């Protein structure tokens, strides 16, 4: 294959396909390279796809995309060993157009999305690994693949090669990731009849629910667990930073089984049948971990650019938005016939001016705070549970006395000053 393309996109996840689709729709000659058997075969996500950023690429996608359920309820559990403090929001407005978000099975969704790109003229090649970028005079001019005579050239190479992004590392855009910058997550898809799901989660036809679980779901380590409803299955997963997993010497699949058997969780899954087990890394380094995203003849998007907001479990939406912004920069670069870093920096500028980087910046200290201060997950979640138990157990103690005891319970563990400091630091990290 010696012909030259306008753009080569490495990877067929949400970022790569959003970029390839937008470029092709604007008349560019696009080659998209996927290492898996089909798009989605290497991709893993808990399962929440956001409407807003998807719609900006494919209007009214919900009318044809393979979606599971629109989410009408988001629950949050602060879970202890035999109790949970919960809060959440359920709103029927999320169950009708234009919706807020959906559960999806990525192997299904990614294939559909990539097909939309192909319909716009993207040349998609599966089962091909890009082994390195071809660099000449400080400029990326193409890619080398693991196929015989597998050198292909383009004006711009888009790196959408996922969390590990060996290609961005090859270019020196980022150093090797550190164990506290990634979350190792293991999940299972568990089949359950539709009626059971609707009954157990208090849902009606075509309504979905998500539960994010903190505290004992990770045995108090920095991380979260999730339970998402699909049409006729449930995705359940749990992850912690790799550094926490290592420090606690936990096995991810044993943590997953601990969660599945937890008395607060087990009744939701009873009678279900496991149908797939998946593990993946999530880039959670946040704002400071975002690498260089534009160079001469190259841009980096999606997980490869570490664009995940762990606090709000947003990632696929940022991937798509970054893919679209990168495509717009490439289209402008072609108009100017200038593919230099200066020219492609319009992508970087758009990215940093967008809500993606604003949100990441908002939480830039959160990951570090929670990593270095294990008391938030290990101590405060059980304390909250004890406080609620005490407050709502009717045992003849006056409420005022109960409040006193609760506050004493908090301060005796960490000291009045310690509690004040923890509260202040947490507020500062997420404000």
């Amino acid at each position: 294959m010696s012909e030259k393309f306008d753009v080569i996109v490495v990877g067929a996840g949400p970022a790569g396909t959003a970029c390839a689709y937008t470029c092709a729709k604007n008349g560019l000659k696009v080659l998209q390279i996927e290492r898996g058997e089909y798009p989605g075969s290497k991709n893993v996500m808990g399962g929440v796809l956001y409407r807003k950023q998807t719609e900006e690429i494919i209007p009214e996608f919900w009318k044809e995309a393979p979606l599971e359920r629109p989410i009408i309820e988001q629950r949050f559990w602060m879970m202890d060993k035999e109790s949970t403090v919960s809060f959440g929001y359920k709103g029927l407005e999320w169950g009708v157009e234009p919706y807020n978000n959906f559960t999806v099975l990525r192997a299904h969704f990614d294939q559909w999305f990539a097909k939309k790109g192909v319909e716009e003229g993207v040349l998609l090649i599966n089962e091909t690994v890009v082994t390195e970028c071809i660099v000449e005079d400080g400029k990326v001019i193409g890619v080398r693949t693991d196929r015989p005579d597998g050198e292909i050239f383009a004006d711009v190479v888009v790196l959408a090669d996922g969390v590990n992004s060996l290609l961005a590392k090859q270019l020196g855009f980022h150093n090797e990731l550190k164990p506290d910058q990634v979350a190792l997550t293991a999940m299972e898809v568990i089949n359950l009849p539709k009626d059971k799901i609707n009954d157990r989660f208090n849902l009606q036809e075509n309504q979905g629910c998500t539960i994010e679980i903190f505290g004992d779901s990770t045995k108090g380590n920095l991380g979260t667990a999730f339970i998402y409803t699909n049409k006729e299955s449930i995705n359940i997963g749990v992850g912690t930073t790799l550094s926490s997993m290592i420090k606690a010497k936990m096995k991810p699949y044993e943590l997953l089984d601990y969660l599945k058997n937890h008395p607060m969780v087990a009744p939701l899954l009873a009678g279900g049948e496991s149908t797939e087990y998946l593990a993946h890394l999530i880039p959670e380094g946040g704002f400071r971990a975002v690498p260089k995203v534009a160079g001469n003849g190259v841009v980096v998007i999606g997980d490869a650019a570490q664009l995940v907001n762990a606090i709000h479990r947003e990632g696929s939406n940022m991937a798509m938005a970054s893919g679209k912004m990168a495509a717009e920069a490439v289209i402008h670069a072609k108009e100017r016939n200038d593919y230099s870093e200066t020219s492609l920096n319009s992508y970087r500028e758009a990215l940093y001016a967008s809500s993606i980087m604003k949100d990441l910046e908002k939480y830039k200290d959160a990951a570090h705070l929670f990593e270095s201060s294990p008391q938030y997950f290990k101590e405060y979640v059980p304390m909250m549970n004890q406080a609620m138990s005490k407050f709502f157990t009717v045992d003849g103690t006056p409420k005022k006395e109960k409040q006193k005891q609760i506050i004493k319970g908090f301060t005796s563990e960490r000291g009045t000053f310690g509690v004040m400091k923890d509260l202040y630091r947490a507020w500062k990290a997420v404000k």
Partner: protein
Amino acid sequence: MSTKTIEEKQYLIRFKANTKSHLTVLDHDICSTNCPDKLCTLFCPGEVYKWEGARMQVGYEGCHECGSCRIGCPHENIKWEYPLGGHGIVFRLA
């Protein structure tokens, strides 16, 4: 049935194994003499790494291609590549 063991979990997945490993322990002596914890045998979600008394066995056929071993090996002793195009794990659902 919901799975109870890692063997049952791994059995659910489709793998199209290559004949050649994409994971390489660079220096086996480091594992045996310098690494008492053998952390990769714990955190690897596919239980790819197994300590067989004297040597680290690498069951690359069951690899999820997550990258944890490359990042988590305290001695940077694992060379990590992608399997040949079209090979390795094939997720069907999520």
